[in-house]
């Protein structure tokens, strides 16, 4: 999932004020942001109450099943037609916010910070697991991503700073290359592919179309 964190309330209030917004729509997301506890029904309701205390009027509320889906966003926002709105405050990851911005002509305000793609360890505990590099090597590395989980992103084994299985950069964490070896040895895949993995340069990407 895409992991998000709530923005500080003051930051949101400041930006709403600076844009002279009074009548506000709050949009949540029924997918990742709901799972992250940052943009579901509950959080939309909470933020709505908090903003009312600051004197804003919450004129429209909706939790889109998937805020980053264009058709779903258009459908949901149609329901706001006829309501006088100054802006859309969106509680979703950055893709959701941008998707909303694509389909309306009002100011869009990001209510969350998007932090990474990761897993939920326990409710509220998330770990970064993937950088969406576009060239997945997990089948070679025991299902553990060194590009994401090694602070240096090295691709061929532990760096010289590995210490008793722990990471040079953070001694409280395991060296991910030690973990990869343990996993591969467990599965009797002793031969680790010699890696000349491509390192892709980041550029805007799309799939299909």
């Amino acid at each position, binding site marked *: 999932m895409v992991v998000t964190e709530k923005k500080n309330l003051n930051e949101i209030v400041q930006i709403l004020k600076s844009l002279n917004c009074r009548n506000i729509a709050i949009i949540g997301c029924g997918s990742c942001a709901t799972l992250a506890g940052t943009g579901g029904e509950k959080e939309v309701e909470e933020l709505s109450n908090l903003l009312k205390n600051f004197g804003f009027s919450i004129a429209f509320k909706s939790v889109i099943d998937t805020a980053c889906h264009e058709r779903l966003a258009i459908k949901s926002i149609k329901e706001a037609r006829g309501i006088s709105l100054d802006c859309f405050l969106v509680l979703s990851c950055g893709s959701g916010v941008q998707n909303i911005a694509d389909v309306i002509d009002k100011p869009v305000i990001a209510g969350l910070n998007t932090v990474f793609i990761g897993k939920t360890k326990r409710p509220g505990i998330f770990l970064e697991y993937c950088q969406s590099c576009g060239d997945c090597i997990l089948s070679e590395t025991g299902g553990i991503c060194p590009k994401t989980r090694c*602070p*240096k992103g090295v691709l*061929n*084994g*532990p760096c*010289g700073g*590995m*210490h008793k299985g722990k990471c*040079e950069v953070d001694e409280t964490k395991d060296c991910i290359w030690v973990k990869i070896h343990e996993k591969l040895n467990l599965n009797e895949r002793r031969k680790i592919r*010699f890696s000349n993995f491509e390192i892709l340069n980041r550029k805007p990407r799309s799939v299909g179309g």
Partner: protein
Amino acid sequence: MNKLRDAIDKGKFILTAELGPPKGTDVSNFMNKAEILSSYFDGINITDNQSAVMRLSSLAGCLHLLRAGGTPIMQVTCRDRNRLAIQSDLLGAYSLGIENVLALTGDHPRFGDHPQAKAVYDLDSVQLISVIKSLNEGQDMVGKQLKGATNFIIGAAVSPIAVPLEPELSKFEKKVLSGATFFQTQAVFEPEKMENFMKFARKFNVKIIAGVLILKSVRMVEFINANVPGLDIPESVEVAIRKADDAEEEGIRIAASLVKELRDIVDGVHLMAIGNEHRCVDVLEKAGIV
């Protein structure tokens, strides 16, 4: 003449030492040390922003060393430069007479004096070795022909006492397969452990140069144990330094006796004196090498 190549080719016991460039442009102290070391050592490693502390560049340090009559081993880390910068620096270095490189991943900037620096790591040490090999073969890493190839002797690092050891040995093997021909090891204090590693290393046709640290004070021991990634000083050594009337002399004695013992186990020694380089020669003398 490349003394390192000569020592490797002739099967001589290889002597190398490490020298860090100054933080600033005043190279007088560096030059004094470079001159002393040059006549005794087959190669002198010039560090590349060691421990992620910003200093005069390794390339410039190597040039100063050449002028002092020494044989440089240019340390190249993947931390500060991407593949374009690394390759162009390597071409530049070779064109200026630098013929030996040590390819390293590099300590994370987090430990240095610019902890906010962007950590590059566009390549890792294994990839860097294969890049240097291809420059030696007259091609850059994307296969474009070079007008004039390099002819570097490619070195790499290994930690013979890493725990766990298996991932380290696997990486060592990748480094050999990628083109490294000599290895300088993390500092060793226990020759028995080195013997153990050599059983594995001897399967490959590469030179193993054992790292020997010259300790000079209790403070230095404490600092290393707390701050240097991947390096532990055993308790027995720490106690000896603490008990000694003269910690610096004890450090020299420990290093010299290690060099003596390692002589029959490995292909050479690499002395790391961290600031006290003028004492490297004393270690060799005490060990009966010069």
